[in-house]
């Protein structure tokens, strides 16, 4: 009979026995397990759930705790129903709709709290545990860090503990915990195998709700005075880069983001650009290969090292020399890129682009325009104008600060003539205004500059605080040239990073402070760990799975082979578990074990112990059969009888007996 038929018949049989087992009432142990599971699940959601929803959930849990503590009855169903309706209305008010990730999680969390309140029977615990597991998954929608994984693991352990406590109400908490841990330990090999081999499908399977990727910090495609210095305080990681060879020196690490070409007097915005599969310049000269691991920013730009060149199929290029992703980067993504730092770009730029790059609003920044006119007077070439403007800015003793004063509409004028202190966007903006006013095509490039090498894993880490803005000037015959006006005031910003460039009065983010060396070391370690986590755990996507399987020698395109491999390994794991289940020590008593081994040895010599035979009688028989060892055999059997049935419990004696038993030679 086939296994399928067996199961079917068994199922029929199950139906036959109509009486269900009586549902056990929820006791305090079980209630506490469930409460612990729910608390561990709901607590981490507090970071993004609206405060009132989180508070309400915790209130429900506390209420449940009180009910357990006092042994009182759960609240009546009518009250719970009213609470549920009110909570649903509240969620509707808070989010404006029911569909989507955030209201869904909020509803689930409230539902869990209320389910717990009414939990009486086994079914309620099962529902509660399933709700907990869903909420743990929902945690990953927001955060997939190591800490979130640890939290979810702990929550899962507690959920399993609650299920064990339900199945085994007579057991102690220790036994429940032990069983749950053992189950997780046995589940881990399955986790590893399936994680690596289960076919990864590139989501989404259906349209994601609008709030799937909420706004994140980072660059934008506009720049106003103060927009980049706001990022200076954030030590959040923007992206990481791993170079094939040694990374370029800090002063050459310009990571190109949005290029801003239009100016309205205060705000720079991105100009239009064309897009193609290949770069808009001839990649020549030195080539650097690296892999960029970009944190999601929900935009298309890739922040590639200047100037981005040939790369994988997912990368596109813009006419202003940005590297772009085909789709907004909504998950942490890896891009293999190369850079040609010495290649000339834009030598044959179109007149329209150049014309746009000299445009200024007519009525803005009059003082800067006047200054530019005086600087440009009598200059032989654009290059000479550039020299003069730079010389002027160097002589002006502008101050570099993380906390620039607020500026009005004529931002370049105010910066150059009044406040004289600013962050990189002020320098770049004022420089570009001067250059444009003098008739030289100039544009702003925003992105990141510098970065820090993590000595633990060698990755270059670029944070939001490394956000930077610089300028590009177009010169006849040389194309676009990078000019960083910030370097005039604060050259150490370019060479050594933000911390070195700021004066003492600028309070640095804690992590950037130089005297926190041990803290930095700790942070390096932690970030290297989370980088490995990102690369190998979170970044394990269809592509990496294909690479990995190919490296193992499997054809990753063959789904049948993959399924076979997965089934085979799972069967092996089950077999191992089965062997573990079947294997059992007959007893944990060492004396008894030794006695059984002794009897087995004697049995091999044809002197097996009969089931009804007591140790003394057996000893007599053995002594008769082996007269040379009669004394020691008698002694062994007598000692065993004494240890087994006598009143004494002596560890030394039992060890001596074991030794004696082992020492016997059958002749």
């Amino acid at each position, binding site marked *: 009979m086939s296994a399928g038929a067996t199961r079917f018949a068994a199922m*029929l049989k199950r139906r036959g026995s109509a009486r269900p087992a009586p549902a056990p009432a929820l006791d305090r142990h079980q209630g506490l397990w469930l409460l612990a599971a729910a608390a561990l699940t709901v607590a981490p959601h507090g970071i993004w759930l609206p405060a009132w929803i989180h508070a309400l959930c915790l209130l429900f849990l506390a209420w449940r705790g009180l009910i357990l503590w006092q042994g009182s009855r759960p609240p009546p169903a009518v009250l719970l129903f009213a609470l549920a309706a009110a909570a649903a209305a509240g969620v509707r008010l808070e989010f404006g709709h029911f569909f989507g990730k955030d209201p869904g999680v909020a509803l689930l969390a409230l539902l869990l709290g209320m389910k717990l309140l009414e939990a009486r029977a086994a079914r309620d615990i099962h529902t509660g545990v399933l709700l907990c597991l869903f909420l743990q998954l929902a945690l990953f929608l927001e955060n997939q860090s190591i800490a979130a994984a640890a939290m979810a693991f702990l929550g899962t352990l507690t959920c399993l503990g609650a299920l064990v406590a339900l199945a085994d109400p007579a057991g102690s908490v220790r036994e429940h915990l032990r069983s749950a841990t053992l189950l997780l330990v046995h*589940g881990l090999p399955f986790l590893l195998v399936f994680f690596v081999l289960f076919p990864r499908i590139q989501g989404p399977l259906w349209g994601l709700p609008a709030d799937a990727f909420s706004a994140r910090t980072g660059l934008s495609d506009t720049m106003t005075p103060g927009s980049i210095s706001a990022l200076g305080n954030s030590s959040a990681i923007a992206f990481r880069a791993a170079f094939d060879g040694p990374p370029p020196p800090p002063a050459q690490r310009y990571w190109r983001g949005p290029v801003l070409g239009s100016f309205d007097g205060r705000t720079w915005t991105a100009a239009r650009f064309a897009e193609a599969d290949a770069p808009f310049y001839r990649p020549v000269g030195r080539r650097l290969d690296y892999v960029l691991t970009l944190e999601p920013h929900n935009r298309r730009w890739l922040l590639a090292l200047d100037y981005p060149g040939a790369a994988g199929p997912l990368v596109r290029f813009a006419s202003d020399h940005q590297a772009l992703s085909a789709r907004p980067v909504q998950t942490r993504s890896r891009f293999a890129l190369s850079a040609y730092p010495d290649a000339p770009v834009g030598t044959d730029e179109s007149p329209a682009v150049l014309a746009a790059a000299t445009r200024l609003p007519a009525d803005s920044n009059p003082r800067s325009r006047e200054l530019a006119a005086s600087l440009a007077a009598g200059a032989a070439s654009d290059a000479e104008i550039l020299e003069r403007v730079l010389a002027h800015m160097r002589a002006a003793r502008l101050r570099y600060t993380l906390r620039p004063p607020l500026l009005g509409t004529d931002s370049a004028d105010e910066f150059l003539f009044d406040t004289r202190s600013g962050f990189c966007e002020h320098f770049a903006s004022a420089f570009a205004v001067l250059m444009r006013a003098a008739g030289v095509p100039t544009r702003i490039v925003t992105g990141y500059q510098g970065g820090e090498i993590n000595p633990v894993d060698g990755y270059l880490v670029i944070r939001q605080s490394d956000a930077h803005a610089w300028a590009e000037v177009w010169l006849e015959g040389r194309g676009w040239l990078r000019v960083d006006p910030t370097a005039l005031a604060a050259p150490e910003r370019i060479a050594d990073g933000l911390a070195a460039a700021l004066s003492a009065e600028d309070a640095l983010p804690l992590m950037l402070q130089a005297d926190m060396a041990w803290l930095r070391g700790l942070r390096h370690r932690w970030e290297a760990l989370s980088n490995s986590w990102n690369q190998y*755990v979170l970044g394990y996507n269809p592509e990496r799975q294909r690479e990995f399987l190919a490296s193992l020698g499997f054809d990753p395109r063959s789904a049948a082979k993959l399924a076979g491999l997965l089934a085979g390994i799972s069967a092996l794991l089950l077999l191992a578990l089965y062997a573990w289940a079947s294997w059992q020590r007959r007893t944990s008593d060492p004396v008894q074990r030794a006695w059984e081994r002794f009897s087995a040895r004697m049995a091999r010599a044809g002197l097996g112990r009969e089931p009804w035979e007591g140790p003394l009688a057996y000893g007599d028989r053995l002594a008769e059969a082996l007269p040379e060892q009669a004394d020691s055999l008698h002694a062994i059997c007598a000692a065993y009888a004494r240890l087994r049935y006598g009143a004494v419990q002596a560890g030394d004696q039992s060890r001596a007996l074991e030794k004696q038993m082992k020492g016997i030679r059958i002749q």
Partner: protein
Amino acid sequence: MRRAAHLAAALRRGADRWLFRVGKPEAAPIRLTQRRIYVLPTPAGLGFAAALAVMLLTSINYNLSLGYGLVFLLGGAATASIVHAFRNLLGLSLRPARCEPVFAGEAAGFRLLIDNPRPSRRPALRLRAHGQVGTFELGPATESTILLACPTTRRGRLHLGRSVIESTWPLGLIRAWSVFVPDADCIVHPAPEPAPPPLPDSGADGAGTSASTREGDDDFAGLRAHRSADSPRHVAWKALARGGPMLTKQYSAARGGELLLAWSALPVHLDDEQRLSRLTAWILRAEQDGRRYGLHIPNTRIAPDLGHDHRDRCLRALALFGSTAEDTERRP
């Protein structure tokens, strides 16, 4: 409806015979080996699997690597729980113990001795037979007695019959079970008639026509040598305390002669079960009164005597009246 019920019963018997190799009672001890332990998911297990599927879809849709991890971990733990549930039953050995006779309508207390050879606890086991469920657990390396009280409705030999030992430990998602038929039965005596007429006065054929109005305990009539079957209430304790031999007090009612409780002497309008019921009541009364009594029923004649053994022999004869020795009827 009835046809469907019959069909279900037939299917079930077929399954018992072919699948679980269950039929005739098995010789003790019954060892639960791999071959006779079955596992299938419980409804909660199916719900869990459905929830995991939804979680997997969510993980795919949102590209949640850790979501995959969580689903696979839970799936792995649930898979491991199959083996844990199976292991919870593996290696147990069962022996039926003696079941004390009961009267119809009382609960028959079946006892099973279950040996757990493993030096670890076996939690949350259930024993199921006759629609009754008993929950128990076994300590490490011990033999425990499990009592399952089954209600009885009619006299005869009640077999424990098809029994199931099962467990949904550890997670309640998987049910492991084993079906067995222990060689255990319980004699169910006929229920005594609630208000029986008084004992027939004597062994004479006129029994049942006139009832004695005298209580058997009334008149002390003398002493005789004690027999082990005599009721302790009738021992002459005072004589014993004085250092004399153990004697039994005889009462005048007993002097009236031995009672003969005869089937044929009962009124003709009583049917078989009513007769058995009345004879049962009389046996109990006679035993209580300390009167010697004999029993004559078709195919069985038991000579007059007194005492527990005698009483049990008579009641057993009544219980098994009309059934053959090989009667293996499995349900009451």
